[in-house]
């Protein structure tokens, strides 16, 4: 009878199988976790793409100076990372080092007691406050993850098209728009490769890319947090105004153009300028057979201080229940060193180390992006810290309204009003 029943059980479709697989996966994950914890250090991460870089480059380099500590990089795919990590932490089987998502996801882990306090970590001195802001408690007192990498925003351009049309790199907004106009009138190239179908491009590559120049980077971002500034202020409305002016320079049917379409338009040489995130460098290196360069978001008039979005994307912390905390601290301090920063920046162009070291990056475009940190003031995306905690969610609203402003279905003023109204509904300092 038992046999019959189990045979029946096996035959039951989806729901059953999924649960079984989940159980199986949970068992496997937890058992590997335990096995790793037993010898040396184990790192939890979502960067499964970088697994080779860690095992072939970074860990051997660490072992040169610290031959006694075995390190194991144990990534989980990005979409499963948050839930898998949560489960492992609850079960007590997570690795010693935990790669931290920025802001609330990591903050919740710290509040639940899963991440150790890092206030006395020597290596933290190598990082600026902006870099550390993604992994600090709201009152700014406790640091729970050390910054690892950030992504920068700017514009990537096709050098061949620029040469063909005798264009120079635009420094100011007027130059930027006259460049776009020249490309539009004198060639068949698409001036700006961006679409609004996925919405996030409008917010991330548009609003957060050019915005810091309007709201003066950190100053404006902090003012929003304290309630001194409102999203209906001139700085924000003007950002959306500029976005609305992008519309004539986007490709035909940009409303249905997706992120991959934009990337393809650029790498196929059909578009001249691409509002970029630095992570695009890797894709473009692989796919574009022409030379491309990058320029930071143009400022109002030449000589103005420029501001760039230098968004903290990845940190690393210590599992509060780790049995090997001392070794973990040694490893973190090493990750704060110049050696790690150089290795990492060159292995993964487009992800930039956040420490204050001067490092050499070999990739020319990544180098260009990196150099803006010297000329410009860094800030992070303004919706990420605290402001996206409530309902309605500010980040989601920014996606929606920015896409609509570019589509021309919403005025910049209406976009400002909608987001500000949303914020006022739940955020005390803005009420």
């Amino acid at each position: 009878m038992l046999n019959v029943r189990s045979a029946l059980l096996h035959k039951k479709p989806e729901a059953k199988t999924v649960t079984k697989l989940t159980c199986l996966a949970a068992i496997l994950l937890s058992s590997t976790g335990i096995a790793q914890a037993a010898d040396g250090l184990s790192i939890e991460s979502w960067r499964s793409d970088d697994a080779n870089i860690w095992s072939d480059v970074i860990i051997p380099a660490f072992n040169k100076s610290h031959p006694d500590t075995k390190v194991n990089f144990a990534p989980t795919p990005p979409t499963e990372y948050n839930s898998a990590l949560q489960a492992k932490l609850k079960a007590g089987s997570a690795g010693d080092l935990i790669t931290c998502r920025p802001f609330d996801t990591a903050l919740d882990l710290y509040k639940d007691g899963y991440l150790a306090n890092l206030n006395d970590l020597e290596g933290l001195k190598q990082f600026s406050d902006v870099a550390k802001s993604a992994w600090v408690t709201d009152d700014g007192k406790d640091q729970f993850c050390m910054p690892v990498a950030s992504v920068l925003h700017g514009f990537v351009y096709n050098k061949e098209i620029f040469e063909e049309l005798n264009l120079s790199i635009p420094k100011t907004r007027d130059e930027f728009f006259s460049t776009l106009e020249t490309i539009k009138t004198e060639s068949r190239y698409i001036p700006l490769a961006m679409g609004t179908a996925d919405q996030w491009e409008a917010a991330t590559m548009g609003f957060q890319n050019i915005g810091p120049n309007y709201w003066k980077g950190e100053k404006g971002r902090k003012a929003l947090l304290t309630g001194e500034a409102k999203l209906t202020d001139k700085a924000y409305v003007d950002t959306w105004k500029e976005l609305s002016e992008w519309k004539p320079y986007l490709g035909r049917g940009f409303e249905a153009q997706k992120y991959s379409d934009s990337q393809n338009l650029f790498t196929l040489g059909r578009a001249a300028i691409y509002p970029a995130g630095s992570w695009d460098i890797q894709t473009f290196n692989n796919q574009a057979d022409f030379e491309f360069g990058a320029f930071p978001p143009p400022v109002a008039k030449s000589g103005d201080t420029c501001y760039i979005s230098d968004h903290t994307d990845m940190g690393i912390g210590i599992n509060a229940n780790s049995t090997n905390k001392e070794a973990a601290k040694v490893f973190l301090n090493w990750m704060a060193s110049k050696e790690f920063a150089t290795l990492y920046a060159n292995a993964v162009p487009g992800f930039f180390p956040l420490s204050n070291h001067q490092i050499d990056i070999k990739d020319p475009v990544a180098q260009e992006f990196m150099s803006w940190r010297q000329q410009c003031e860094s800030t992070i995306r303004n919706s990420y810290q605290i402001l996206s905690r409530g309902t309605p969610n500010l980040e989601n609203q920014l996606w929606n309204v920015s896409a609509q402003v570019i589509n021309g279905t919403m005025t910049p003023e209406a976009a400002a009003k909608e987001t500000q109204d949303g914020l006022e509904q739940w955020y005390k300092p803005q009420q």
Partner: protein
Amino acid sequence: MTPSNQHDEKKPFPWHLVFFLGPGLLIYVVFSVYPLLDTLVLSLYNEQQGQSNFVGLQNFITLITDDTWSQAFWNALGNNFKFFAIHMLVQNPIGLLLAVLLSTPKLRLSGTYRTLIFMPTMLSVVIIGFVWQLLLSPIWGISEDFLYNIGLGQYFDAWLGKEGSALITLAFISVWQFVGIPMMLIYATLLNIPDDIVDASVVDGANSFQTFWHIKLPLILPTIAMVSILTFVANFNAFELIYAVKGALAGPNFSTDLMGTFFYRTFFGFQLQQGSASMGAAVATLMFLIILVGVMLFLFFIQRRIQRFQF
């Protein structure tokens, strides 16, 4: 119940029923009934910082009266009704038409047509979404050239990206994919109609339209009713196509947001939006209630009036 007792009664306890129904029932209860009830219970709680408190119907009141939630909710519900209406007005009539055409005895290669029309139904929604996005893409797509070739070029637009047309376009894609199901069901019923009834109508002097209208249609009405129910339930649970093509934010400006995507954002969260299990359960409960009410209305007012015929 001892063996000696069993002997006295008229019928012994039907243990074989337990044996055969038990495993299925157990699985059904554990993986379907229990989660459903648990969802209903969860929707009455409020979870904050890992603590859950009983709040009664508060989640539902928030969902329907609070502006931030209700706007999204009514928008999703309205879109869902549009989505359903398009399926009822386009998918099922076309399905019926195709079934009637396929069942014409003179039609050659009907097996081939049947397979071809049913093919998209078997493909993954993700593939369908991807293929149609490419076909309709203003950058790489062939639909623009196609329209120019038949002289309608000026009507081409980025349909999937415009607020006014995105939902309708998606509904048509979904219709294209699933039209095979009503076709197959109706086709099977049509084949079941005995030839002598049809022959009798022909002898009585009915033309083919009259035969269809007066003889065949009444006989397949129960199937059409069942198809409508299936469409209703499937449409109000629809999620994959929207998610595959437009993402969970269902743009532009939430014009393609259905109950499914709204539930997804609420329950699992999205980007920086943290998911809320209890609020998500409330949305899921409302979805369940809407489907339940719809099916009940249908059963009471339509299904009861339909006569079934036995051949």
